[in-house]
């Protein structure tokens, strides 16, 4: 095990896989954004100069380039930079990449990794703070991966680079600098559809994805001081989704708070809550509580921006209210 930042762990996985598989190429100039973490990517440019390409800003054309390359035997890693720009390529993602295998009757494959940085990063304002995964979850044919730690980032990226399907890898802009223990053994990979209990507990289940897993863990510490043992469950991938792992946790605690950085309407939290209610209604001691972004664009000014992000306090209050319910 070694201590690595999230960004470094991503680059480790990418570098190792590029060494092993000549089919992999990287197209995108800002894989790790415009912040300090971006210099981590220089190793890939130096190590594989002929396999890294700086495209014009033409996101729709870029995703289609990835689809065509995948159909021609390649394994392109296409980075769109900020997730908000993926809307410019929305048709290429949901009408082309997602449908290749299905509409060819299973004859053709599209092994493509589409990477983007999502979430409220600070000062992003309404057009650079999107978390579009809820909308992509409604488009059949796309695998969706949301790592929350450096370890998960490395393990899940390796699986994505070996998947025969189009995979959306959404990294939260604020996680790039976070540090954590990362296994070194060669070929370390985490399969899709396998969630993880990041912290065991018995009184309430806190479900988070990507950055909100950290919020859940912090809330669990605060609750522990009040004698409430919260369990934190991280599904890690939306498609395929680890229902068994989630339901097992719900059965243990009987209470659920789902924390999601998407806007609450038709969000990831809505889908997760509806599934729990439908399949484990009997296990619930009270209604499932959703915590997400309110129905408004993301404001620029720090005090406004701070008010819309799911907070530790909100999670603690919700969990305490559920547990204290008569």
């Amino acid at each position: 095990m070694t201590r690595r930042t999230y960004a470094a762990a991503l680059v480790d996985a990418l570098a190792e896989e590029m060494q092993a598989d000549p089919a992999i190429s990287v197209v995108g100039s800002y894989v790790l954004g415009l912040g300090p973490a971006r210099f981590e990517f220089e190793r890939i440019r130096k190590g594989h100069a002929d396999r890294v390409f700086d495209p014009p800003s033409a996101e729709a054309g870029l995703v289609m380039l990835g689809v065509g390359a995948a159909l021609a035997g390649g394994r392109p890693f296409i980075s769109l930079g900020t997730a908000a720009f993926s809307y410019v390529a929305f048709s290429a993602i949901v009408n082309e990449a997602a449908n290749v295998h299905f509409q060819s009757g299973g004859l053709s494959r599209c092994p493509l990794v589409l990477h983007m940085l999502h979430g409220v990063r600070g000062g992003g304002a309404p057009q650079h703070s999107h978390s579009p995964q809820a909308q992509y979850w409604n488009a059949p044919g796309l695998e969706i991966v949301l790592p929350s730690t450096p370890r998960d980032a490395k393990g899940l990226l390796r699986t994505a680079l070996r998947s025969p399907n189009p995979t959306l890898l959404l990294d939260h802009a604020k996680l790039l600098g976070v540090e954590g223990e990362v296994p070194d053994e060669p070929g370390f990979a985490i399969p899709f559809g396998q969630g993880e209990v990041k912290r065991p507990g018995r009184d309430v289940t806190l479900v988070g994805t990507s950055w909100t897993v950290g919020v859940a863990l912090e809330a669990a510490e605060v609750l522990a001081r009040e004698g409430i043992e919260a369990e934190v469950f991280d599904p890690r991938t939306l498609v395929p989704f680890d229902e068994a792992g989630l339901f097992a946790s719900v059965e243990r605690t009987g209470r659920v708070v789902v924390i999601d950085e998407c806007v609450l309407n038709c969000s990831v939290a809505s889908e997760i809550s509806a599934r729990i209610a439908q399949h484990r209604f009997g296990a619930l001691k009270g209604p499932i509580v959703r915590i997400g972004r309110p129905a408004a664009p993301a404001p620029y000014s720090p005090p406004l921006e701070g008010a819309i992000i799911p907070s530790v306090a909100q999670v603690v209050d919700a969990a305490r209210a559920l547990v204290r319910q008569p």
Partner: protein
Amino acid sequence: MSWNRDTALDIWCRMLSMRRFEEAAIALHAGGHLTGHYHVYIGQEATGAAVIAALQPGDLLFSTHRNHGHYIARGGDPARGLAELLGRATGVNSGMAGTLHLCDPAIGMPHTSAIVGGAPPAAVGAAFEFARRKSPRIAVAFFGDGALEEGLSIEAINLAALWKLPVLFVCENNGVGAIGAQGGGFPGSIIGTERLTAIPESYAVTTMSYDGTHAEGLYRAALSARTQLLAGKGPVFIEAVTRRWAGSQGLWPELVHGPTDVRQAWQPDTVSEDAASDWVRTGDPLMRLGRDLLAAGWATAGELSALDERLRQTYAQGAEAALGAPWPDPSRATSHVFAEAER
């Protein structure tokens, strides 16, 4: 590979097969078996057949909603193609694709997009991979003049020109003639300039314009384009100008003169006199190549008739088999959403 008897005869057979496929499709629609709207390739066969005849097996082809001709010219199985149009289980794509998305990786046609402007960027992606892996293969994108109104296809031309990718853009400009615009039909391309080729030229792309009904010209153009592409000299853009077939009324085509009679190539007086006869005599690429074969002494009327007869059998049986083919089981609807990783 050069223009000779064998090549010309091979292209004529491909063109005739493309024509019979569309005639079968129109008949199936008239019989109420083919629901939904569909697009036929009648009148453009020379472009598809000639360019595709110049390809090598490893090259990849990307088409659009008007794809039947490309599928047949590249060697797609007619019976399985017709079965796919009828949504049957034995269709080449098991009923998932239908007329808008006919494809088959086995003949180098892996994915057919029905989004206008979808073919050029996909072909650019494939060419990007070939160039990167230094493999002697090219990608071809067929699309209509309308596609150049989509920003997506212009982004593709820029990418291809920028990185000198081995992609051949074939723009089948069947810009609506008089019939379409006045008859309440759909206006052709709406582009600010008259000269379509000005757009690829503004990206320093090698651009040529050809008569879309002249198989020999297009075949030579495609051969030289392929050589230039493999030499890393960047993309080539071919505009193939064709006249709209008399029977094409937007989404509901009709066989204005019934099935094509190949003998009219050497018996022009048998063409009945009406609004469509001019197109049959001068606009139909099949008739034109037939006349050229006879004039060059590369085939006799008898040989052409014999080839035609064999193809009629193929299509009669094909339509028969398609109509009799089983419907897919509804439970299959959720299959192939994701591919299984190779074990």
